[in-house]
């Protein structure tokens, strides 16, 4: 018999290949887009413009940002860091202040009757407002609503909102709605 060089055992090569595959799978980050999701109100029909739904004054808090990126909440000047607490206080209305939003008792499936706040946050901006400031304010408003949702979740289910399962999240969303109205730009209406 001729002298033979021993063959290299190749059966583990597949394992190495898979190991590399898994490594790349984990380390490659697919750039997932993240952001703030919003639903725009539908454009009013020309002839329908008159009979808009009137929302009671006490139910609206207007957040205004001007061209110099100054912020106003209600009728007082404010700052990005203060918005969240102001919105939380406005929407929850803990002392049933007559100037803050009323609550409407609604039947929510899986929870029963619950007094849902009718508060709406209305966001107004100027043409010259920086997009960054606008997003910061949007972010703070969402943060306020998320905080209320977290409070509600811990109170009723003993867990944070993010840890709830889908059905419970739906209930919480119904009990604490995200009512943000992005107002029509003032000058668009003025021109017509």
């Amino acid at each position, binding site marked *: 018999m001729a002298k033979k060089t021993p063959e290299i055992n190749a059966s583990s090569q597949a394992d190495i290949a898979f190991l590399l595959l898994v490594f790349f799978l984990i380390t*490659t980050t697919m750039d997932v887009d993240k*952001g703030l999701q919003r639903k725009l109100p539908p454009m009013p029909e020309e002839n329908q413009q008159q009979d808009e739904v009137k929302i009671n004054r006490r139910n609206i808090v207007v957040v205004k940002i001007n061209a110099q990126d100054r912020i106003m909440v209600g009728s007082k000047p404010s700052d990005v860091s203060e918005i969240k607490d102001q919105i939380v206080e406005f929407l929850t209305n803990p002392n049933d202040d007559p100037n803050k939003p009323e609550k409407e008792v609604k039947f929510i499936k899986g929870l029963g009757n619950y007094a849902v706040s009718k508060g709406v946050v209305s966001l107004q901006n100027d043409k010259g407002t920086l997009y960054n400031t606008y997003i910061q304010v949007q972010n703070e408003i969402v943060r306020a609503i998320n905080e209320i949702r977290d409070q509600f979740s811990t109170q009723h289910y003993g867990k944070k909102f993010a840890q709830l399962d889908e059905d419970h999240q739906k209930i919480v969303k119904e009990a604490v709605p995200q009512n943000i109205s992005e107002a029509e730009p003032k000058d668009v209406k003025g021109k017509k």
Partner: protein
Amino acid sequence: MGRFRKSGKKSAPAISTASLPDIVFMLLFFFMISTSFRQTDKLVQVKLPAATENVKLERKDLTSYIYIGSPIPSKQAQYGTDSRIQLNDSYRTINEIRDFIASERESRSEQDRAEMTVAIKADENVRMGIITDVKQELRRCSALKIMYVARQK
């Protein structure tokens, strides 16, 4: 049995190629995953604003992107530095958004059209005027689901 071996010359055994398919598959998977489809060339500079309360964009295949920002340096001689809107691969004006949305809608299946999202990727230094115009135009085309794309703070 031994007959063939006897006649064979003394030679190094061939390298086993049994694992070659594995390697090829590995490369295939790697490229499949790292390649993102429909990569449009960026014509505007976008530095996304930062936010903390981000949610993930679901159904990427049902998303249309609108880029807003200042043109990239190589295009600034031609287009200036004013914020511009980019749809697909070219600079567009506000009025062309309607056609863009219509064609995006056309390319999706019937039941998916209601789920369509428009992702607005705008630079943080853009003024709201242009964003508001885009939003108004989107409302006119009833593309109401939008997302302000932001990076995680």
